[in-house]
């Protein structure tokens, strides 16, 4: 059993650090690069319910049941608002300015021309949340200061 489910995507983005270490999101397509050296795989983020109580239930279930199991699959079908939490890589819970202006947001430089940009970003469609998550993470890997 693989430790993480994969994010299905056609675009592969690879970030090469100054020391030659490379970082890329786990996808089926990215598997072709796994043979190039030693790999460590870690969780990058969570797409989780935006509502507190639902998120609590979600977190409890996901801590009990494996990511690849039926219960985890069922939790992904919940009809709710979703948010993106990038704390596993030291990132934020995405706010609208992260989504709408990720380049300035990655290193904490925030530009919020509208108050609503500072609110936690939520999506009705989980796939849209995942797409925003992927876009943010790739920018984050490129611009973060380790």
């Amino acid at each position: 059993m693989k430790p993480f489910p994969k994010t299905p995507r056609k675009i592969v983005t690879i970030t090469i650090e100054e020391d030659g270490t490379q970082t890329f999101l786990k996808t089926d397509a990215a598997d072709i690069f796994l043979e190039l050296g030693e790999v460590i795989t870690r969780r990058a983020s969570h797409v989780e319910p935006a509502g507190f109580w639902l998120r609590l239930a979600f977190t409890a279930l996901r801590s009990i049941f494996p990511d690849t199991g039926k219960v985890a699959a069922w939790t992904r079908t919940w009809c709710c608002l979703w948010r993106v939490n990038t704390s596993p890589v030291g990132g934020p819970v995405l706010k609208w300015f992260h989504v709408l202006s990720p380049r300035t947001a990655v290193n904490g430089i925030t530009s919020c021309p509208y108050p609503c940009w500072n609110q936690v970003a939520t999506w009705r469609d989980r796939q849209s949340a995942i797409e925003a998550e992927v876009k943010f993470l790739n920018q984050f890997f490129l611009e973060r200061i380790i």
Partner: protein
Amino acid sequence: MSAYHTQKTQYKDKDALVAALGDMGYQTVECHEVATNLYGYHGDMRSQKANIIVRRNFIGNAANDLGFVKAEDGTYSAIISAFDSGKHDAEWLKGLKRAYVEKVDIKTAANQGFKYLGKKIVAGKVQLQFMDNRA
């Protein structure tokens, strides 16, 4: 939820390593199936042997040969004399590794039917993007 891979790439691809050395300024590189002796700055033959060699006359005055020896597992490791470690220091090696990773990624992707979409560079980091064109 996403996961990500962090990868310490090893030198395994001869052609990509030669191309990376080219990027680092060494256009003339010898490749040997059987490891060959390196030479010192006096022209003295050293006991150390390597499969990929930049001869000292392409490196600079009073330099020793720079070599990469292939291990049984197929990976190459650098042989840099103490004398040349000022020029070929940790920063230089990082640059070589970056150049190698970029070349080997592009080559691997092309071999697998991926389309190279381009790269961007931010503060010393390089980001490559590929489109998976496989059916």
